[in-house]
């Protein structure tokens, strides 16, 4: 049995349609006839309009943040302007590179990750290394792998091809294990976890590498490494980097910035660094 409240009578349907300017063809005459019989119902129409105005006034307070509005407008800028702006940023970043004499330089990028992207991806990458139950025992049982080299070899079987990932164990990292996981938006990603070896400057710090087949959904291109910048302070100290090469996406995550940078170099990440 239906709730009677959900079934408008002809009178209420007509009056509300009038208040909403939603009268169907021919209903104007019916409304006029009704109001001639029930002139008080004009006040009902007015009430309905005022109620709508009151709701609109009460619930329309949220304004889009100015920074977001600017990004939206930048998205709509003519492609040529966007290209010039990107070139300008790259030029500025290159100048910084020369001046500082450092390996990496940064630039800005007008692109964006899809919805489940930035906020979700940041949260995943920042928390997953701590939450996942990786251990040597589990890795051995599940993959018959107990060393980093074996893990690299097994990636070819798991992902259908062999990704290019450099050796990290001679840079002061110890293999902790590997596991299957799904980086948001992907069916299968492989997580390799390492930890800073005793005596290294990042002793005990976790380092996570994720590898997955690229499906083109990440707004990145080959030839650059991207730093994923958290918008929230909570994850501001976590180094999160990604790059794409020959059909694979690679992610490097560590709460120790130095460990992350060393891992990037050892893993073979492109030297050009862009912000995402």
């Amino acid at each position, binding site marked *: 049995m239906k709730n009677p409240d959900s079934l408008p009578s002809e009178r209420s349907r007509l009056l509300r349609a009038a208040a909403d300017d939603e009268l169907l063809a021919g209903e104007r005459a019916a409304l006029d006839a009704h109001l001639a019989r029930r002139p008080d119902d004009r006040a*009902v129409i007015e009430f309905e309009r005022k109620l709508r105005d009151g709701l609109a006034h009460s619930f329309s*307070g949220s304004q889009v943040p100015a920074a977001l509005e600017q990004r939206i407008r930048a998205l709509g800028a003519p492609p040529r302007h966007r290209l010039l702006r990107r070139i300008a940023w790259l030029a500025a970043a290159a100048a910084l590179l020369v001046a500082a004499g450092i390996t990496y330089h940064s630039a800005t990028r007008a692109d964006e990750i899809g919805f*489940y992207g930035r906020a979700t991806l940041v949260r995943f990458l920042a928390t997953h290394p701590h939450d996942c139950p990786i251990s040597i025992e589990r890795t051995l049982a599940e993959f018959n792998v107990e060393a980093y080299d074996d893990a690299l070899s097994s990636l070819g079987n798991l992902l259908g091809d062999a990704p290019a990932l450099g050796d990290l164990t001679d840079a002061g990292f110890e293999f902790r294990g590997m596991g299957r996981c799904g980086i948001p938006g992907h069916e299968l990603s492989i997580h390799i976890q390492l930890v800073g070896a005793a005596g290294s400057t990042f002793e005990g710090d976790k380092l996570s590498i994720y590898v997955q087949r690229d499906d083109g959904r990440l707004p990145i291109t080959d030839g650059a490494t991207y730093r994923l910048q958290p918008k929230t302070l909570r994850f501001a100290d976590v180094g999160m980097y990604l790059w794409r090469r020959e059909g694979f996406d690679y992610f490097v995550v560590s709460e120790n910035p130095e460990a992350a940078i060393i891992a990037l170099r050892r893993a073979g990440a492109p030297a050009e660094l862009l912000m995402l």
Partner: protein
Amino acid sequence: MDRTRFLELATAEVNAVYRFALRLTRDAHRAEDLVQDVYTQALRPERIAAFEPRGGGIRAWLLRVTYRSFLSMIERSRRDGAIFRELLDGDDAAPEAVSATLAADFDWESVDGRLKVAVAHLDAGSREVLLLWAVEHLQYHEIASVLDIPIGTVMSRLHRARSRVSKELLTDPGAIEDLGLRPAQSPLSGSREGKRSS
């Protein structure tokens, strides 16, 4: 449609898209990501070229893209498991069920107290229809298009929502005064209607 004109119309709707995204996601950062994703999709040349304001104007079209994007995110989150666990709150994540979580911790602080209470008491489906109608000024067929539900469902939900909100407000003389209403202006709340129907 000409790109410049499309851009002008689309960016003019960014507040409506943001409000809707905020209600759906209940999180400012996610709402921002959703809005940016919507405009990234909307401003692709092929989308502009193929733009057809089916079921309403560009606002309805953008809100429909917003809702579809949100549902896609929910679908992905089912696979991803933990990422949006708090968003799903253990619910089944069907469109209405997702909106049902709004009542729990949506920020109502800026909303007039009496309307806030009245609207919060609505079921999720009716509330979303009511706000798209009242705040975003969508017509019935546009709401149907945005939420992908029959227009009859829109009308019955809207009727139910208005009746219940009116009924709650009418029990509060202060609300009647605040809204500039006179007691004689009886709304079409369910309980009174039967007695007055012609």
